[in-house]
């Protein structure tokens, strides 16, 4: 692993560069194919509404994949992420329009650990509401 961020250069409270990620219906179709998750609530509005959802919703695993990009873009080497976990607290509705949904992701260092590792807490919002709970990663820095 070859993180481009040095352990010596971070502290509790260090903020990672924020990013936002667009998720539209095409994204959901591509993710369904790539992941093999063809659950109908991610592509069929009729079924999504029938089971009480507000609209077609993004795969939780897609949201999880986007949120960690703030960390992997920061460290450069994605293999530096040695643990990553989230709770799916709120569905991300993806309307059938030209813009879809936007995930706004921020993160900061919350703990310095042994072996040049740090714990990073991630915040992921859609329409100003948090969609992931207790999202955190452990990253090994240089």
């Amino acid at each position, binding site marked *: 692993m070859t993180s481009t961020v040095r352990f010596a250069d971070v502290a509790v409270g260090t903020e990672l560069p924020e990013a936002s990620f667009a998720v539209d219906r095409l994204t959901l179709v591509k993710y369904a194919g790539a992941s093999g998750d063809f659950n109908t609530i991610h592509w069929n509005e009729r079924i999504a509404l029938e089971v009480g959802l507000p609209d077609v919703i993004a795969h939780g695993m897609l949201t999880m994949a*986007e949120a960690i990009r703030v960390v992997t873009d920061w460290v450069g080497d*994605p293999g530096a992420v040695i643990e990553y976990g989230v709770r*799916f607290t709120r569905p991300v509705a993806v309307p059938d329009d030209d813009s879809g949904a936007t995930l706004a992701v921020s993160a900061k260092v919350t703990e310095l650990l042994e072996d040049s590792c740090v714990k990073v807490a991630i915040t992921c919002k859609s329409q100003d509401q948090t969609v992931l709970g207790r999202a955190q990663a452990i990253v090994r820095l240089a």
Partner: protein
Amino acid sequence: MALNPEFIGRTYPAGPSYVVGREKIREFARAVGDANPAYLDPQAAQALGYPDVIAPPTFAIVLSLEAANAALFDPELGLDYSRVVHGEQSFAYTRPIHAGDELIVTTVIENIRSMAGNDMITTKGVITTVDGEPVATATSMLVSRGEDA
């Protein structure tokens, strides 16, 4: 219907191995819009010390959820899959998955509990190479929403 708590601790042996393809990793990375060269360019991955392109951190779900189906669709467990939503997910990596890996997943039912009319089941997929080298674990908590919840 409540899940059978006697299933806690039950282990489901690995099914057929999964050979990780370079194009599959690229397809997954492109689907999430992530152009990190470590996922796309073998030379960039080698410069980081890996034998080939590596998979994004959440790629392991492709193997682990498929493997967990052996447990989740066990008729004696009593899970109504049409009412299932993904509650929590975590991964721990010994090393990143890379193209060329031949992997197997052993699934353990870690926990089953009921709360407010919902059933919660936690499965842990232990991912190793076919030679037994540890690679990662993927822990999934699924919620089966009760009829009245």
